[in-house]
């Protein structure tokens, strides 16, 4: 299997795109990030990450129709690709397996 490299922030952004399902663009991703993770990041970070995810093939994008709200400017809607979905699943699965391998006492000791 080809290993997929996904940074932590990239993973979160990819998740957001998947969650927002057809409604993901710069603004909604930023807002969702702020709302659900409490992380306030600059718009540039989100923008760059989306471009990078697209280059890696995890998301695809399309310019949407213009809306009055944005002074007639179009927005770019992002959607997770099949590869993106699979990557997320693989990560999830890997994490799960790793969790299984952890000795049960360890968790208790660290106060969890």
């Amino acid at each position, binding site marked *: 299997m080809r290993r997929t490299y996904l940074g932590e922030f990239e993973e979160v952004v990819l998740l957001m795109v998947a969650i927002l399902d057809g409604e993901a*663009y*710069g*603004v909604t991703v*930023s*807002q969702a990030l702020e709302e659900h993770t409490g992380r306030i990041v*600059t*718009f*540039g*970070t989100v*923008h*760059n990450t989306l*471009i*990078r995810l*697209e*280059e890696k093939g995890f998301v695809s994008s399309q*310019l949407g129709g213009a809306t*009055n*709200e*944005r*002074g007639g*400017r*179009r*927005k*770019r809607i992002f959607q997770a690709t099949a590869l993106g979905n699979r990557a997320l699943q693989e990560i999830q699965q890997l994490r799960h397996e790793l969790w299984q391998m952890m000795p049960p006492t360890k968790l208790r000791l660290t106060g969890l």
Partner: protein
Amino acid sequence: MKANELHPPHWPRRVLRWFHPEETLEEVEGDLDELYAYWYQRAGKQQATWRYLLNVLSVLPPFVKQRQRKNKYHQPSLIQPSMFRNYLTITLRTLAHNKVYSAINVIGLSIGLAAAMLIMLYTKDEVSFDQFHANNPHIYRITSKSITPEGAENVDGNTGHFQGPKFSAGVPEIRAFVRYKADRRDIKKGTEVKSYESFVADSSFFSIFSFPLRSGNPKTALNAPKSVVISEKMAEQHFGTTEALGKTLLVKDSFGEGNQFEPYTVTGVSKNCPQNSSIKFDVLFPNVVSKQEIESNENWFNVFQNTFVVLQPTADLKKVEATMNRIYLADAKEAIKMMAEKYGDKNKVVYAFQPFTDMHLSKDLPAQNGLQDSSNPMFSYILSGIALFILLIACINFVNLTVARSLKRAKEIGVRKVVGGGRGQLIMQFLGESFILCFAAFAFALALLQLVLPIFNELSNKALSFSYLFDFELVLGYIGLFIATGLLAGFYPALVLSNYSPVQTLYSRFNLSGKNYLQKGLVVLQFSLASFLTIATLTIYSQFNYLTNKHLGYNDKNIITIGKSHMSRNEAKLLKEELLKSPHIVDVAPKNGGSWGTIAKVNGETQQSFAYETVDATYFPLLQIPILKGRNFSADFPSDSTKAVLVNETFVKKVGWKKPLGQVVNFWYNEGEKYTVIGVVKDHHFEPLNAEIKPQLFTMKPSNLYGKVFIKIKPGTETASLRHLEKTYKKLFPINPYEYTFMDEENIKRYEAEAKWKQIMLFGAILTIFISCIGLFGLATLSAERRTKEIGIRKVLGASVASITTLLSADFLKLVSFSFIFAFPAAYFAIKEWLQNYPYRIDISAWTFAIAAVLSILIAFFTVSFQSIRAAMSNPVKSLKTE
């Protein structure tokens, strides 16, 4: 609240529009607007503005990532042999189709490159001067600085007998020393006597300096007092062979007594000295210091030669200098005291070092007194400046012409782009064109260099040869120069041309945008440089004229001078009698040779230094020097020869006499030697006009020997007079070398430096004007071509040839006139600075500037009008028919 009612601050948005990548601008701007509205609602205006700023910043380069184009095609590598072939074909075709354009560029660039290469050659030679000695950089010259009690300093590169041996005995860091001076001696070959520029050095000479010997032992060659080392050239000249070891030369020491020639054994034949050496000897004698000279400690103050030392590599200069000065103060204590008592000399002397390799380009302590070819670094700067000007102007031509001509090539560029040529490829192509032109220019430049090198050598007093071109560093330099020129000339046009939009060019809607300030600016720059050089040349010409034509205060026409050292009264009298037997010779006046300087007490106390001349009564009438007050020396007053002196006006002024006649002058070295002033002669320029007139004093003192004879001849009798002169001289002084000069020629020779400057500036000015003009010519051609239709319509509507010519020329002439605004002030300050060097100089006149201006405009007008008139005369039917 609706988002579009909220307006994020304007200027960050403008910044965003400027800098954000175009492709993602729309979406990002929209997103940021939406976010602004979101922040506004949640946290108020201030917060929102603040965050908006921060976020705009985060999407500006270099922070923002560039989205790759979806529709990007595969671009083949820039280095494709097949494309190269295409570029080459197109380039050659374009060049062949535009012969004027190609010729202008190649001629300009090759002249520029040749000039730059020449200067690199020159500079390389200058910098490499004296660098070939193995002991460098540890060779130093001992210099002395004398400080008067008032604090005035005078530095001198010369030292005497003592400094070398005494310092080297007392300072362990000094490994060796050598004393070196020039000494003209007469050498006899058969019955012929010739005077040779000879040199004298200590026996350590060949171990300190790397002058290889062909034959002979370098360690012992200069040991014996009656030995001599000669160069291959001298050996060839004198013996006809370089195998001269052990042969004898008959030499007369010019300072020795009597007229005896003594045999000197050749103990070494050296290779000819390299041309970039301050030490250049053909005949080298060992240094012989007499016992008397060593015994008198007063010789600390007798300076007349160069002393070089080799220091230990680890030596601390400051420490060694301090030790040296301690030794001097200890050893010369008595002598210093005595000097102060006897002559009232309270000057302090401090010794220091000057690196041997600094001498050549030094201004304070140049290579003098037996050392040769010291060079003014100013010369290098100005030459480099001119070369740079020329190259720059040639490159400007290239840029201007290429950009102006690009209109015609716009279609080609458009087609290339439409069929998929990338910008990189176009840049490659145009840069390649510039490099091909540059390469052709380079080849021409080499040929040109070969051609001008002899002329340049003559002008710069060098012996540079074409073979130096193949020096590794220089070759690297030339390659660098080639690449730099190619880039300089080609880079900007390549950028401009490759940026054309295919849509516009293919619809023929294309025009050079803006008012083409760059092209105009460059033309102004070119002509500023050209006018600057013109003004400089005119000034140097007038100053040179002034120097050579200024009345010197005496008449130097029809005067032959001959030299004969140590001529006694009787010899002079005999010579005069013999010479006057010829009807062609008007009169004969002997004078002391060389320049003597001395000091005397005047008004009882004041010390006055002056040039001390020994003449006879014929001297002033012969040279037509007026006597302003009193009278000339005369045979009617027998006491004149021992008791009377004449002084010049400057002397009187310096001393401050109201009534000079009858005043007493007392020579400082002899209480009893007192003279009365019997007359004042008019100031005359005996020295070159680069120096101010010094106080002069004339005596007839019989014990002073003569060294020079002025012979006034009747005009037009040069050949006969010279024949008589030579015959008489050879008869009276068979063992003295006979050399003569015409005084007026000799006087002009003094301004050799100015004459060279004149030539170099003239060449520079002509070249800059020429290259600027061919550039202008090219631009005018293109502009006339571009406006063919306009001209056709104007003619059809009744415009005259004159009005069209004016129309086309006016634009360029305006630019040329505009260039004076920059050229005039710069030239004014430059020539003002230069003229400061001359105590006798011309005034800066407005005429110089006016002439330069008229000249520039006229030349530019002729250049431009040629094309303009042709365009104006053309048949309008032809140009309009095609529409």
